[in-house]
């Protein structure tokens, strides 16, 4: 299983994905430098990604805490999520995300 992560240079990286891991962990384990300063505890907003609109409905929506934390991210759009709050399942095989500015 894989996810596709577009890095800040616009390069698409295919990264191996493991069930139950957060997308933040998958990105970091895949060797892409992501700040993710709080280590996945929804307390820093430096794991901000844009989820490809085609995949948005397959992911459980952001909780109140995540929405609040996104206030500390930059250039937040309707596709914005914190990668540490998206947990990988087999339904997400092929998920496409793009790193946001300020998360490197």
């Amino acid at each position: 299983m894989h996810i596709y992560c577009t890095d800040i240079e616009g390069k698409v990286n295919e990264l191996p994905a493991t069930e139950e891991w957060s997308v933040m962990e998958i990105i970091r384990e895949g060797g892409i430098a992501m700040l993710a300063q709080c280590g996945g505890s929804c307390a820093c907003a430096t794991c901000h990604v844009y989820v490809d609109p085609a995949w948005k409905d397959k992911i459980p929506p952001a909780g109140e805490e995540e929405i609040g934390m996104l206030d500390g991210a930059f250039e937040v759009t309707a596709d914005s999520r914190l990668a540490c709050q998206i947990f990988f399942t087999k339904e997400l095989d092929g998920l496409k995300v793009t790193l946001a500015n300020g998360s490197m």
Partner: protein
Amino acid sequence: MTNTQQDVISTDVIIVGAGPIGLFAVFELGLYDMKCHLIDILDRVGGQCAELYPEKPIYDIPAVPVCTGAELTERLMEQIKPFSPTFHLGQMAEKMEKTADGKWRVTTDRGTMLEAPVVVLAAGGGSFVPKKMPLKGIEAFEGTSVFYAVRKMESFRDKTLVISGGGDSALDWAINLQPVAKHVTLIHRRDEFRAAPDSVSKMRALVASGAMDLKIANITGVSGQGGHLESVTMKEEGKDPVELPCDSMLAFYGLTMKLGPVADFGITFENELVPVDTATFETNLQGVFAIGDINVYPGKMKLILSGFHEAALMAKKAFPYVHPDRRYRFQYTTSSSNLHKQLGKDE
């Protein structure tokens, strides 16, 4: 102003960082009669616990089934009270050097000078600093017309000001600077604010009366000349970006941790962490220790409980530097009358 010798504060131990580990270090050092001065850039103690998760529960503190970040900080402050530590808050430890008589001198950005035979680096993930906006070319304006904190309100007098953010800092400054500035536009990504309800209603009232503008948008660019901001580009969801003329911007996106000046203290760092010997937690410099999140050794886990253990071992090695003519004696707090004296429990 030049500092004379009298301005130098002499103490036993200087602790850089007043996070949970710096605070507990006061206890372990205090038991063995070592007095501490602590420095933190934040204006309150507690480090990550106080700044990042004051309301969230911690479950893995031994014998404390649950407490929040704020509660842990409060309890540590209560525990170290008998040792009356001195705090230098809102100050960045900027420089560390060796003095002629072999002590360490630490100087802060406010000119506070401390001298001691022992320095404990409990700097965690680095010093807390405001997040900077990752916009192209913004560096040219930072410090001249783009700011992440307010030092003097007067410097915004008669300015056409953009304030970005949706938390307490953004709202407080928007409300306070509105009468000072020529005009204030508050820009936030959504029409909801995570701030004190009172500030939110004050802000809404100012907007309703036309005294202040509110835009629900992202800031996507800055432009101007010679360090002087002329406009910001603002994009509302589903609309084309527009330029908003202004001459200053204040941006509040929360804090982030940056290693900062401790990198230049002469202490060896590897990947922004200080390698230490796990028997003593001493660094490459004699009398300089590193405990808590800032250090690294085989098997290191960035946990509060690990930092507490590190503080106890550090204190043992620090003792002879502070009291060269005294012998360190291992004792239990339960039964040692000597420790009871230190704790102020000897009546």
